[in-house]
């Protein structure tokens, strides 16, 4: 019996992830230097791991409240107030989730009626469009362009707003482009959201990884925006805690309560020892975060210059740990470039279209890997580019 017909239509119609497909190919190769990862190369700082061990030792192996440990919710609200300048009530306005991915899913499911339109900028994180589809919404991508350093402009946003527009998803600093927003542009976007009564899901998972001492502005901190924003964040990137699967959403009580209904039945609560580790991260992790940020910044300087020297232009992003160079001068498509580079030179990067149609002509390279590896990878990419241009 073929079960294909039994799969729900809206799930069946979701295309296979471009990343997944590429992962399967890379998995067959040996000794690959990978610039295709989406997580820090640092192991979780020891004091945070130690806190998780201590939690286990203390027998903290039971459920927590649905919203998450009160101590963690308190620590999160302090942290968000201090770093993002937005105040939330730890009792009713924050929910701890299994990674920020769950928080995003909860928000969409809590907000969307079938057919509601969700605006998002692309290229973007791979789960955005499918998550909207799975929540029965309609994903409306807004292309961003290399000429504008992949920023979302209020102008481009305005063109896509319709009667059915309900939600705007933002992710700055952005995976895969490293794009960040200026306060001035966010102000204009905020004004549009207020005028058109849009709810904003703002995924700021990379915000601690902002370089050049640039200011990270949360749209939730702008006048009139707190009450129409779901602020999404987590521990994976800044604290190198991807495997802990711990994130959170902060939102006005009515929205938090709606998200909580889904969370309590689907998940019950996030992992208890991961929550304990997260408290340690917030309270004592600043120094390690600063160290990692400094390391990433050096690598970014290195890799951006190296790509530009090869004639594969890319702007110097101010956030996250990705660069998104333009590879069209090689005469190859993104897919041909990535496959060729992998097969011939054993270097993995991700083709831009995996993150949306506007990614064609680009590849995503992650510099969360040691400088020695980046060095070798760049030599090999140099050889590959020369051969391709012949």
């Amino acid at each position: 019996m073929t079960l294909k017909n039994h799969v729900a239509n809206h799930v069946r119609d979701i295309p296979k992830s471009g990343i997944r497909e590429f992962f399967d190919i890379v998995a067959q190769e040996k000794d690959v230097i990978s610039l295709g990862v989406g997580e820090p190369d640092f192991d979780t700082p020891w004091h945070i791991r130690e806190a998780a061990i201590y939690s286990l030792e203390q027998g903290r192996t039971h459920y927590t409240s649905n919203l998450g440990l009160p101590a963690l919710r308190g620590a999160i609200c302090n942290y968000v107030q201090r770093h993002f300048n937005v105040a939330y009530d730890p009792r009713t306005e924050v929910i701890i989730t299994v990674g920020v991915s769950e928080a995003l899913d909860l928000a969409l499911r809590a907000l969307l009626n079938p057919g509601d339109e969700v605006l998002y900028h692309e290229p973007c994180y791979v789960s955005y469009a499918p998550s909207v589809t799975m929540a029965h919404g309609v994903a409306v991508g807004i292309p961003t362009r290399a000429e504008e350093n992949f920023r979302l402009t209020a102008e481009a946003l305005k063109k896509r707003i319709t009667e059915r527009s309900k939600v705007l998803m933002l992710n700055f600093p952005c995976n895969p482009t490293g794009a960040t927003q200026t306060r001035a542009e966010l102000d204009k976007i905020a004004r549009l959201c207020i005028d058109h009564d849009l709810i904003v899901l703002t995924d700021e998972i990379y915000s601690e990884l902002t370089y050049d001492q640039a200011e990270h502005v949360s749209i939730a901190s702008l006048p009139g925006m707190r009450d129409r924003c779901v602020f999404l964040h987590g521990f994976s990137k800044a604290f190198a805690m991807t495997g802990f699967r711990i994130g959170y959403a902060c939102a006005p009580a009515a929205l938090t309560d709606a998200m909580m209904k889904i969370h309590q039945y689907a998940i019950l609560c996030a992992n208890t020892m991961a929550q304990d580790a997260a408290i340690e991260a917030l309270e004592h992790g600043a120094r390690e975060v600063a160290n990692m940020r400094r390391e990433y910044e050096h690598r970014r300087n290195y890799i951006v210059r190296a790509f530009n020297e090869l004639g594969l232009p890319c702007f110097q992003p101010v956030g996250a740990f990705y660069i998104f160079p333009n590879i069209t001068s090689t005469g190859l498509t993104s897919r041909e470039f990535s496959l060729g580079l992998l097969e011939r030179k054993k270097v993995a990067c991700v083709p831009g279209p995996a993150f949306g149609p506007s990614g064609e002509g680009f590849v995503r390279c992650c510099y969360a890997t040691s400088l020695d590896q980046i060095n070798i990878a760049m030599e090999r990419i140099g050889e590959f580019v020369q051969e391709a241009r012949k």
Partner: protein
Amino acid sequence: MDELLHLLRQNARTSNENLARELNSTPTAVAERIARLEEEGVILGYQAVIDVQRRAADVVTAVVEVKITPERGGGFDRLANRIAKFAEVQSCYLMSGGYDLLVIVEGRTLQEIAMFISEKLATIKGVLSTATRFRLKTYKENGISLMRDEKHERLAVAP
């Protein structure tokens, strides 16, 4: 700390070209800055960090806590410098607390170090007492862990 010094402390063998890339600078500018730091005595030297247990079994290390009498006009400095001059002394620090100088001494054998301390160090005028402790095993050296952690697996491609 200064970004260049930070990178050199991590790996002093990084080429000027690569340092320049990391710091958004030029190799010439990096070379000039390094030369100046050397001249100013900020950079004292470049050494390999070695696990002596593996390749240099004939190295014995002791830390010696030394109490000395400070001198009018010179405090601890004259005597400390005198102690530091011995080739056996790897490092010498003035400390707060129950003793004055912490002296790290290297020798080929336990006896050699014991002789150095009893004959040279302890007999200097102004040295009141010494307490010697020998190193048995190294777990971390200059910030580098000697536990060879296996590299943890990351997915080669991830979103």
